[in-house]
């Protein structure tokens, strides 16, 4: 099974050419890859991703993906 990665908001700008019409990236065969490694795979600056939400739960960046995972990548910066 594949893994779905959804860059949220501003992060889309870093991988726009890879997004499908639903603003997501479907990745095959990512079993065991860490969230941090997947960011690098798709061109997201991993350090900018401050929150990973996997299947509606917060996960560490060292979390290893499993087939069918749905991942939201969120950058939280500050105020203004």
């Amino acid at each position: 099974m594949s893994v779905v990665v959804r860059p949220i908001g501003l992060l889309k700008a870093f991988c726009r050419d890879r997004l499908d019409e639903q603003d997501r990236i479907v990745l095959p065969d990512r079993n065991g890859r860490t969230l941090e490694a997947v960011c690098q795979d798709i061109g997201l600056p991993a350090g900018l991703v401050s929150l990973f939400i996997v299947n509606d739960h917060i996960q560490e960046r060292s979390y290893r993906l499993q087939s069918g995972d749905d991942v939201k990548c969120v950058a939280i910066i500050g105020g203004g």
Partner: protein
Amino acid sequence: MKYGTTGRIARVDLTRQRHRVEEPEENFYRTYFGGSALACYYLLKERPAGVDPLGPDNLLVFASSPLVGSGIPGANRYTVAAISPLTGFYGEGEAGGWWSPELKRAGFDAVLVEGRAERPVYLWIHDGQIEIRDAGALWGKGTGETQRLIESEVADAKVRVAAIGPAGENLVRYACVVHAMKHTNGRGGMGAVMGSKNLKAIAVRGRQPAAFKETQALQRLIKWYAEHFMDHPIERVLHDGGTIGWDVTELDEAGILPTRNFHSGSFENADDICGKTFHQNYFVEAGGCQGCVVRCKRVARSDGPWQVDPTYGGPEYETAAAFGSLCGVSDLEAICKAHELCNTYTLDTISTGVTIAFAMECFENGLLTVRDTDGLELRFGNAKAMVDCIHKIARREGVGNLLAEGSLRAARRIGGGAEKFAMQAKGQEMAMHEPRGKGSLALAYALSSTGANHTEGPHDYLFQPGALGVSDLPEIGILTPTPAIELSPDKVRQFTYMQFTWNLFNTLGLCIFTAGPGKLMKMHQVAEAVAAATGWDTRLWEIMKLGERTVTLKRCVSVRQGASRADDRLPDRFFEPLEGGLLKGRKLDRKEFERSLDLYYDMHGWDRNGIPTSGKLVELGLGWVNGINCH
């Protein structure tokens, strides 16, 4: 020769209609530099305890800094400070733009205003001269009209004007100061202090740039920054989308988007008020400040039902959330209008939005009715009532007269338990960041001497393990980053050191978006810039101590006005579970919070009541404060 500074501070006594120039020694600048620290020095040195914020004894300080005008990106800011009519303690607001560099070109590092004019006046400061001019024709005008009239009167289209509108004149306690219609010294009610002095504006213009010692070193840093800023993810994001482009959607997903007066961390209509929607529908162009390539400002326009005028810029994230999710409003055009009105009336968008959200919660709970609100159905989600309310607040009409006092004072007048709906610390309203999801923000809101302040310290997610900002922390002594939500001893230490850096920036007149941890320009480069600008053989250690000195000076001003640990509080709501969003159920722990305060005071050399100790004051070169009853 002094480098970086003009060596001149303008002193204006509006009661006596006199002015003079003060010329401090170089060590004064090296100790207090500019901005916040300089303002605190004068407030402590010259004002008695218990100053009435809206009385003639209050001292109003406009302070630039030796780094301003050097061309370093972001070094264009200034502090407006006084005793705050909102909190009764130290108050300040910072702004970028062009006013601060122009003040230095006009020959001054700061302007100090005391007393009260009998009739409305404005100050015209140009090429070393100070004039007190009649402002009778300006009184009652908004910032746009004020700018145009002063331009005409001084016959100079490039005059920089920091002004108040009707909200400042009417002493709305969270009135701000606005220059060029879009750069705001937003917080603390400094506009009301101007209004109380019958001071409509300070217009500045000059043709003599300050001298900087190592101009080639400065130019190298400026060139390097321009070549690299788009390679830095944060600077690129700021450039491409501004603050409205980086937060609403993200904070909503994270469950920390303040919604309906901080009941929830998620807004069901977040997509309607986010950066993408803004840029698709209302964005005109990007704007910026003097010498800054990042250009993070946004200009809004609409020819739709709300008719948004681009003259007044566009909403930052704070404004979008304060009038959006916090009020349950999903009409982004109305939010842009609210922003425009605040900039022409000179209202702080954060306090205005939070105070209206407070009133909405009172209305929903029957503590206010249509009889109290002049017929306004002041319910969450009612965009028209929200915008109508802004007019009323600025003019102090009807319910606006109540809400012009700020949420805490309004709550005390309403009674019936309304205080629990007032989301404030020390009387100043919360910014649009949820402390139940950001440990440092809980400390920043409670411990800032100005009342709730989101620029008092770091926003945690950028500095948790693995995040982009972590690699910038070792140079200020933080080797072990802490998780965002945590409120541990290590978090208190991280907050403490970062609070020094954030406060340092308010003293340097430097923007937190161009430099510091998590940004392109690192702290050692900031120190190098200070050395190049001033010619002082200074290093990171000295400027970090300047940051610490700034924090303690602010505390001393507030302590002398009566502040203590009892004021370092957060609203009860933050100790109750979030009602919605990813962090639903999350709350702050009271014992953990109190332990954090103890630890924080210990780290700062303050006693357990939050009072700076004699030893700490001497260590910071502030021994003289011991003699003026800070305790």
